[in-house]
Structure formats: C-alpha cells, structure tokens
C-alpha cells in the first residue's frame, strides 16, 4: 500500500498469537502461518516477540539460493521460493540472519512471509499487522509511527554484515541501528582484544 510501512515493536507484544492465527488466513499460504513467534524465556519473564520477514534490500536468502528461486519484487517484497525452481536445499533457511524462511513439508518448498502480497498488492493491510491487538506489528504511515516512544530503524549489523531492510524495528529513541554483538559496541579493535585474551 502506497505510503504505508511495516513496523515491528517487540516491546509491545503481549504474546497473544493473534498474528499467528491470522497469518494462516492469508490467500497466498492458507492454512500455514509464516509468523515467527517466541516467548523470550517464559520461565523468567512474560516478554514475547512476534515478527515477520524483514524483506532485506539485498536478501541473503536470494543470494545463497543455488536455483535462483527467490525473487524480490520492485516493491521490495521478498517472496517465497518459486515452486518450479525450488530444490528444497534449505540454503536460505540456514543463511538468513533473521531465521525467517521455512522449509515446508510435504510441499518441498521454502515458504516465507510475503507481507500478504494478495492483500498489500490490492491496497489492503497485511493480516497480522491489521489484527495485532497491541500493534506490536503495525502497518501504518510514518507520521503515525512518529508518535511512538521508540524510533524506527532498518539497519542491522551482524558482525561485519550490514543489512538494510524494508521492514522497520522500533528501537530506543537514541539508536540508529541494531547491532547484536557486544563487539559492535566496543571501542577497541576486536583483533587486538583477542590477541590480548589469547596470551
């Protein structure tokens, strides 16, 4: 939908799994849910997180596909593998830094979130973001998201790999990018630290 963007804010998630249930109502993969959902550590906390495919600008899944079965549309949507091409090798499943693609049995095909292509391509919002009761998954205009406490970010660092994505994550207001490795926050050169550590 023109002018709308997808935002993921795990801090708003209440663990209800409405997104999971609604995802399987999607026309392109009816009966199968493509949402990734986790309680972070249920024993210790009620915090949970639901997320969709981040739709990378340069999708790792497509880069590693030996069969050239994964395509990104001009609208930035990265689609499920093309059925006639997919050889079910699971390269994409292993390579995706976010853990998004799923190898579906018995179809023998990689399937993933396509941001409800059947809906977004005809001016409707994706199913999960429409129903999400806490709007942890939101498909709204940027001016609406600007009212929130957190700030949208779509740059991620995984070690040396920088990934920019179509989907945004809501980060603390003073962050421009999300890095998951302590190394990325360190002042020293990691090699130097490792040499010292090895002594």
């Amino acid at each position, binding site marked *: 939908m023109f002018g709308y963007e997808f935002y993921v804010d795990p801090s708003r998630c*209440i*663990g209800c799994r409405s997104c999971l*249930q609604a995802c399987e109502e999607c026309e392109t993969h*009816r009966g199968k849910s493509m949402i990734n959902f986790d309680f972070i550590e*249920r024993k*210790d906390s*009620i915090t949970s997180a639901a997320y969709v495919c981040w739709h990378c600008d340069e999708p790792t899944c497509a880069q590693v596909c030996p069969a050239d079965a994964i395509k990104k549309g001009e609208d930035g949507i990265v689609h499920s593998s093309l059925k006639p091409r997919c050889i079910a090798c699971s390269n994409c499943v292993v390579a995706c830094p976010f853990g998004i693609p799923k190898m579906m049995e018995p179809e023998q095909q990689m399937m993933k979130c396509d941001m409800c292509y059947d809906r977004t391509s005809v001016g409707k919002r994706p199913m999960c973001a429409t129903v999400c009761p806490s*709007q942890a998954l939101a498909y709204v205009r940027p001016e609406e998201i600007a009212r929130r406490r957190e700030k949208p970010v779509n740059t991620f660092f995984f070690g040396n790999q920088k990934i920019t994505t179509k989907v945004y994550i809501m980060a603390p207001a003073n962050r421009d990018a999300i890095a998951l490795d302590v190394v990325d926050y360190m002042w020293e050169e990691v090699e130097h630290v490792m040499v010292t550590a090895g002594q």
Partner: protein
Amino acid sequence: MAKPPASAEALKEQFGPHLQYVPPGGWQDESIHPAEKLVKTHCCFCGQQCGIQLKVRDNHIIGFEPWEDFPFNRGMLCPKGVKRYMQSNHPDRLLSPMMRTESGFRPATWDEALGFTTSRIREIQSKYGKDAIAIYGGASLSTEKSYLLGKFARVAVGTRHIDYNGRLCMVSAGTAYKLAFGIDRSTIPWSEIPKAEVLFVIGANIGECAPITTDYIWRCRDSGGRLIVADPRMTPITRNADLYLPLRPGTDLALLMGILHVILRDGLEDREFIANYATGFEAVEKSATDWNPRKVAEITGVPPESIEKAAQWIGKSKRVILMHARGLEHQSKGVENCLAVINIALATGNIGREGAGPTMITGQGNGQGGREHGQKCDQLPGQRSLADPAARAYVAGIWGILPDELPQPGYSAQEIMNAIHSGEIKGLLSLCFNPLVSLPDANFTREALSKLEYFGVVDFFLSETARHADVVLAGSLHEEEDGLGCSAEGRVIHWQKSIDPPGDARRDSAILIDLAHRLGKEKFFPFKNPADILEELRVASRGGVADYYGITYERIDKEKGIFWPCPSLDHPGTPLLFADKKFYTHDGRAHFNVTEWRESGDPVNADYPLFLTTGRVVSQYLSGTQTRRIGALMDQYPEPLAEIHPRLAEQHGIKNDDWVTVTTRRDDLTLRAMVVKTIRPDTIFIPYHWAGTGSANRLTHRTLDPRSKIPEFKVSACRLSKASCPDLSHDDRPAHHNGAAGGTA
C-alpha cells in the same frame, strides 16, 4: 434424575468437544468458491466487542475480513476473534432438539421437546409452587434475548428466580457503581485512555482478557502516560509497567486504602470537587486514617515505597484512569474493592472529565447490555429496580399486566444452585450458561443438577452441563440472529444476522416465544423477530437509567454504535458520563462509601498455606463451550496448567511440566506445572476454562459477596504436592491435541 445418561466418553464421542481446524470445504476452497457477501458484525467472545466482517457463502461462515472502519478496534482482533468463524459449520452442532433416553440422547421434534418442557413446568409449579422453577440466562446473549428472557421468566413462567452468568463476571463493579453514581456502566469511552497521565490497573489481565485495550494503554504511554499494574502475577501488560505492585491475592482493599491514606495524608485530594459534587467524604477520610503504608505492606506484601509512589503519581496527576476487572471483583469483598477504587477517583476529582475516571472492564460478550434489561434477579428493563414500586408499575404497564402480578426479586445464580441442592427449586431452564464449569465448587453443582426433576437447556453445543439435561433445545449462535450488544465502554452495537440456524435448530428468541405461547401467554409475546422485541425494549427502558429509547439498528449502522443513555432519536448518545458533574443518584451527587476490611471466605492456614487464584487465558472464552471446539485455539493452550514460582517448585521438588496436585478444602486437581517467575511464590494460578478432571472450579468455594453475590474465584486456600501422571481415562478434555503447551513454547 438429571445425571448424564451415558458415560463422559460416549457423550464426547457423539457431541464433542471435537476440534475444528479448517474452514468449510478446506483451506483452498475459498479461492474456488469465494464469499458471496461480507457481513459487518462483531466478535461473539468478550466484552471488547470488536468489529469484524464475516465471509458468508451458501448459509455458511467461511472466513473473516478485518473491519478497519469500526472505531473501537480498527481491524484489530485477538486469536479468539480471528478463529471465531470456526464455531460455525462445526461437527458438534446440535441440529435438532434432543431428548434424554436410557442410554444417551435422541433427536426429537420441536413439538415433542417443547410440549414436554411445557408440561413439566406446569406439573412442577402446580405441585411445588411457581417459584419451584428457575431460569438461568447469560451475558453472551443479545440484549433483545436478555430482555425477552426476563419477561419470559416473570410473565410466562411467573417465577421470581431468574439470574444469569454475569453474576460470575462483574456484578461487584455494577453494585459499587450504582451505590456511588447511580449507574452501572464504565464512566469513560475507551478513547479517553490514551489521554491519561496515569493509568492504574488493578486485578485486570488486560493483555489476555481485553486484548484490544492493550493498544489504548500503549498509546497512553507513547504520550508520556505512566502505567501502574497491581496483580499477584506479572500479566503481559506488566512488561511495560512503570510501577508494578505484586499484591497478595485478596488484599486489594488494603492496597487501595493505603493509596487513599497517602493521598489524604499529603493533602493531594481535590477539596473543591469533594465539596461541590460528592457526599460521604468525612466518613471515608476517617476510615483511611489507620491504613498507613507500613500496615498495608504487611497485609499486601507490596513495599511501602511502592504504595507511596503509586499514591503520589495518582494524587499529583491531573488525569488518572483507574481500571479494574475480575481480579478485584471476584472476591467476597468485591463491592468494597470497587468502592475503594471509586473513593480514590472521587477524592482526587478524577471523574467526568477528559482522560480521567474509574472504569470496570466488562468481560462477557454482552456483559454490559446483558445486565441492563431484566435477566438479573432484582432488575427490570432500563436498569430499573424490581423492588421499586414506580418501576414495577411502569414496566407492568408496558407488559400489559398488573404490578402485583410481577414476581418479587429472586435468588442470584449461585443461590439458585444452592436452592436446587436443598430441594427448594425443582426445575431449571438454562440458556447460555454452563454452570458445571463456571460456578464454584463444581462437585456441589454436579450433585445439585442430579436432584432436578426437570432440567431443560437451550444451547448450540451439548455443553458439560447440558449432558445432565432431560431435554436440550437446539438454539442459535451469535451470527444467526439480529440483536444489540453493548461493549465494555458502553457502546451499543448491532450484531448483524449473517446466516440461518442449520438443520432444525432455531433462533433462541423463537424458542422462548414458542414456549411462552405454549404456556398460554401468547398475547404478551406477539414478537415475530428481534426488531419487534427491540421496539418494546426501547419503550420499556425509556426513562430508566439505561435509556435505549433513541437507539435503533439503523442509527447504530450509520453511527457505528451509540453510547447509552440515549433518550431520544435525535440524542447523540453519552460517551463520557458525568461531564456536567451530575450523577444518577437521588441527590445528583457522587457518593463516597465506607469500605470494611474482611478476611477471605476460605482463609489460608497451616493445612492450606497457599493462595489459589483462577482466571483466563487469551485463547479461551469463559467455560470453553465454544473455544474448546476450535483446534487452533486449543493448540495454543491445550490443557489447564498450574502456574507456580520456581521457589515454590523447588520447595516441592517440582520441575516445569511435572504433574502436581493442588488440594483445597473442596477437592483436589492433578495437572501439569508451569514454573515461572511471573507469579508470587505463595500463589498458584489455574485457568478455569476446562471441565471434568481439568476443572479448576472443583477447587473453588461458594462464599459470596453479601451485596453483589459474586463468588470468590480469586482467593482460595490450597496446598501443593508433586504427583504422578493421573488417570485421564475419564477426562473431559479433547483426547487428541498437539502443539506446545501454552506459554511454555
């Protein structure tokens, strides 16, 4: 008489619960046979009453489409709403009336089933008197059905004993709001929530039981609002609480008195509001003197500093909304608890203005509308009192009977079951109620049901309670009849009829009207359809507090709901109550009420040293009659689990997923443990949606709040022990479920 005619396994085989996983025709069918129409209606589960569009084809519900233009939820739905359509086309659906036989139930004609019912009601009443028959209703019924059932009980059957399952829901709040304000409704529309500076949430698992309200709360925090959560468990919304108060079950009143104490001690009250618009302040002020934070901390387990902080935030903010639900209300001092919330709101002047006010979060589908027009034991339409001579005269006039012909107030829901057990009540007709699962002390309920000389049930599925019936009248689902609902925020909405009842099943209202005619009261029940009932309801409510006179289906469809009171067709409705600082009390003022501390009706002692508290999970609704038949929802949380803290688990050598036995003074229950740090170490939580060997209400007790008559579901004394795998051969839970146990995924 009314014991199940066959084993639980045999009845389950025939009538379920079976799990429905796919839409009619399978997942791919809709692409070949698309929907013929989209019907704008509402979810049938819970008081949020989210707008939803049902996809209809060939008199089947085949799916849903979010309804983004409906202002309350703007397309949002919880998993129950998403899967709500799976209750249609269900293999367990009753397609004709059923009569009990020696070995089960057999299909019957309507003439036989209704003829039997009529003659049994007549026989019992002529032998034991009019009041030997009782009627049960429910708050998932449309407002028209609720109204009709009240009139049916009083005019067609002539009994004074009619009450409903809302008695197990929020009646403590209703009683308190009537005492303080003269009206039983949320004081605010939900659009006020994001405007508050402080949200105080006590005894309300909003993330699971009122999921859409979460978005309103998060938006309040986006604007800088602060969230205080008081609960023995860290429920999902606690993840973003600015202050969490982990109170001991049943000590809410002490916490609230402590907060009021600090507000008054520090002079944070609104003297101008109190002087101009309220009465009774001095007595409440005096009653709060003893409740210093230190004493309150000892009773509640909440640190004195946290009590101080909560009071300071509330006392120093201009706009405070205080929200509460079953946690506060399901106590033998439920009314006191709610009054204590109201006292804080009144003392700080947080009422009748933007972003401020106390509010109950009504739980059931039509929890609000179902309690306004006469299916309560002491009530007439329009929230009128059955004991009020003027109200009796007005309604009797509308109904075409003499005021003296109207029965006097009767027993509340639990009292009806007690009277069945004692033999005072001999016959029961139940619609939209599954008391075997939802009333406390389930073994007592089972015993009582076995004593009935006549038991008739109107239902769409054979609930666990209906297994005890002599006759089951195949009724209708939410989507099979037009009607009004009223949401938690007081918005009257239109449930659009989407399809006809399948087979020989009938609309609930048609069943009641037919019965009334057979009981010889035809002229009082000339209704052909819900619209006819609404016409009479509008007039019957006119001039009452819950005035619906200005509300029609057409107006609702056009205006996307109307907030009552709405006394005339050109009245815009009343979203925010008391904006003019006028209250519905006899003197027009808001009333402070003194609250008295009492111990729970089932006190903790050396033999039963732990608190048991029961509640809900997001994937199930009430007694599970509907949601335990929907596969995706059952997979999400397949069986009841006992939530316990790792410290308590360690004490008993219990690990996550181990079998444990929870014992109270009534019974014991063996179930799996869910070991989590999100609950107080002296408390066990069990959700109540299951029947039979999974029924939490086998453990709860029948102590009632003396005024609201609500049972004390939230506080029982219990003990815990490790167990081995129980004998599940007589289990009422569905036999095949897969997927991770809820919450531990």
